């Protein structure tokens, strides 16, 4: 059943029909259009499926701030590295964080094989990891609303079970405040949002209503298969042609209007909104999530006396402009020359779903 669905979502004839409609709508609109895919997984899916190669010339897809690795400040990595140097503990992290360099250019990958950095696929592995020894385990809490509830549920369980050697170093980010910041940026440079599918699974449609206010832009929640992506782009163009700015759900098989309240409740039981530093965007009010007072004993920052997270941008790197849609990766003087996936300078080249890395790896054909 799932396979049939997947095959249909890659169907060439459907793709052709959708591209035809997209071309018609783009022609009707006439002017240059920039659509921001907020989510890094969208960036990769668009690139991997080669959708860029058949979009009309007047449509440019630009990547937004939805790659958690890209928006994690270098100072966060610095603090994680200092934990390893100064404390007897194990760092647990998603594989995504391993390559991200701190301000000194060093990343956690230098500890691979030392047993001090453990890569986990699921936060649920943290409980048994903590129970298997006495040593403190610090989990690098990165991610957006999709991932936060999974981590929250594990820490709530750890609280119930009285596990006291498991700690959280939160650098969580939430999407709607970032959209607000992008929307109200004085030199904003995009016409619509392709909204993140799996964040929306948790959030539902309501938190995006800010887009429907005057001065807003169309926002279409979209899945990740090629037909999903083309369908999402078409919905955006239809809104733009009609001069609308509505929130639309083009991923109804996964996203309900009300989202997943149970997951949100779990997330909000452990955590509360906080001002958060985004690499490239600076501090966005209430765009992060920190532990509530009741659960503060889990906080690795407090337990190990970590300094405040500092921002640092490598010289010459324009990632900050890229994730706001104000520049394209190939407009950076470092892109593909001093900065490649093998030798990344900025965060957008580090993460495989970073805009620069995806542009470099899945490049279009030379003309």
């Amino acid at each position, binding site marked *: 059943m799932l396979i049939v669905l997947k095959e249909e979502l890659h169907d060439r004839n459907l793709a052709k029909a959708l591209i035809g409609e997209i071309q018609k709508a783009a022609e009707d609109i006439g002017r240059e259009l920039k659509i921001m895919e907020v989510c890094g997984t969208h960036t990769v899916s668009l690139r991997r499926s*080669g959708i860029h190669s058949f979009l009309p010339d007047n449509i440019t897809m630009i990547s937004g701030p939805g790659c958690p690795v890209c928006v994690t400040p270098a100072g966060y990595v610095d603090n994680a590295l200092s934990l390893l140097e100064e404390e007897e503990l194990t760092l647990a992290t998603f594989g995504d964080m391993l390559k991200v360099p701190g301000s000194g250019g060093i990343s956690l990958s230098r500890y691979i094989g030392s047993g001090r950095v453990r*890569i986990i696929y699921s936060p649920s592995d943290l409980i048994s990891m903590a129970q298997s020894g006495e040593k403190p385990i610090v989990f690098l809490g990165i991610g957006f609303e999709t991932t936060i509830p999974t981590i929250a549920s594990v820490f709530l369980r750890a609280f119930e079970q009285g596990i006291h050697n498991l700690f959280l170093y939160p650098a969580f980010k939430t999407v709607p405040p970032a959209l607000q910041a992008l929307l109200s940026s004085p030199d904003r440079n995009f016409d619509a949002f392709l909204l993140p599918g799996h964040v929306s699974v948790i959030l539902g449609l309501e938190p995006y209503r800010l887009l429907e206010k005057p001065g807003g832009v169309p926002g279409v929640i979209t899945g990740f298969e*090629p037909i999903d992506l083309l369908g999402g782009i078409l919905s955006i163009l239809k809104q733009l042609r009609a001069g609308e700015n509505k929130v639309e759900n083009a991923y109804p098989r996964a996203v309900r209007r009300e989202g997943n309240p149970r997951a949100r409740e779990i997330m909000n039981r452990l955590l509360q909104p906080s001002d958060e530093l985004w690499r490239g965007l600076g501090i966005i009010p209430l765009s992060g999530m920190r532990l509530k007072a009741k659960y503060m004993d889990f906080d690795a920052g407090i337990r190990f006396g970590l300094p405040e997270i500092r921002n640092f941008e490598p010289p010459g790197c324009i990632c900050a402009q890229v994730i706001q849609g104000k520049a394209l990766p190939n407009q950076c003087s470092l892109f593909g020359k001093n900065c490649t996936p093998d030798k990344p300078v900025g965060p957008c080249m580090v993460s495989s779903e970073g805009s620069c890395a995806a542009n470099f790896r899945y490049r279009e054909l030379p003309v």
Partner: protein
Amino acid sequence: MKHEEKHTHISLEHGSGGALSKELIEKVIYPFFQGRDFPELSDSSCFSLQGRAFITTDTYVVDPPFFPGGNIGSLAVFGTCNDLAVCGAEPRYLTLAFVIEEGFSIGELKKVLHSIKKAAEDAHVKILSGDTKVVPSGKGGGIYINTAGVGESIISFNLSPSRIREGDTILVSAPLGAHGITVLAARESLKIASSLSSDCASLYPLCRSLCSLGEELRFMRDATRGGAAAILNEIAESRSFGLEVVESNFPIEKKIAAAADILGLNVLEIANEGVLIAVVSENAGSKALELLHSKPLGQKACIVGRATSAYPGMVILETTVGGRRVLDLPRGLLLPRIC
């Protein structure tokens, strides 16, 4: 005198050259190869070959050393034999050198030796010489193996990407990704590992079969580290031709595709140990496919693309929905991702 083994784990003394070294070699390792392979323990072994011959060496450090569908032992035999086979050589002889970490279980060593013996029989190679060293605990990853191999050429010319011409056909012999994703899942103790199995196998039967095409066969390579994407780029790199491949033509098991999706990986970039990529002339394409289909390991072989003069030095992928993009070299570490 009773031949009881007093030791259950490798100690530094097993590598000292003294009594324990002798016991390890004579009582644990040698019995697996006595008779069929090296007839007696000596400093070196004698063999003879006729005509053109190939030699190769490779070192195996796979982590973890045991994984579903194989272990470092079978890998060390098949990997080196496959490097000979893809050059159009029949694998004949191997050397076998171990670097074992202090504390490694002798029971597990025996499992590795058993796999080596079985793989050598499957691949019809003899193990002619060996060596064992022990490193202190913490200085190695349990067990590392080096094998060197010698093979006799069964064709009279060298296979090379320089023989590829515009229009030539690219074939892939078996479904991609099984080995790399199995090892990754085993290393990270992921539950999906129990549904997976490495494809580790001898490619010589497939290679021999394709060699019957004579000069129509241009080039062969086993798609190991970096997977199909790395090999295709290696073939095209700095050549006057490029390669055009079609994503939906690559043989990929649905189970492997699902595992790759879960872990955020691309099957074309994942290592294989039983997959051959071959380039043959345009006319020989369907004959080559027939030859591969006639062998057990090649039953799911597919034609995946062709050489083109349009994009010299590049590999171009036509995606499932008909988009076109560059197929890049794999970059970075293979790690499970959530993003």
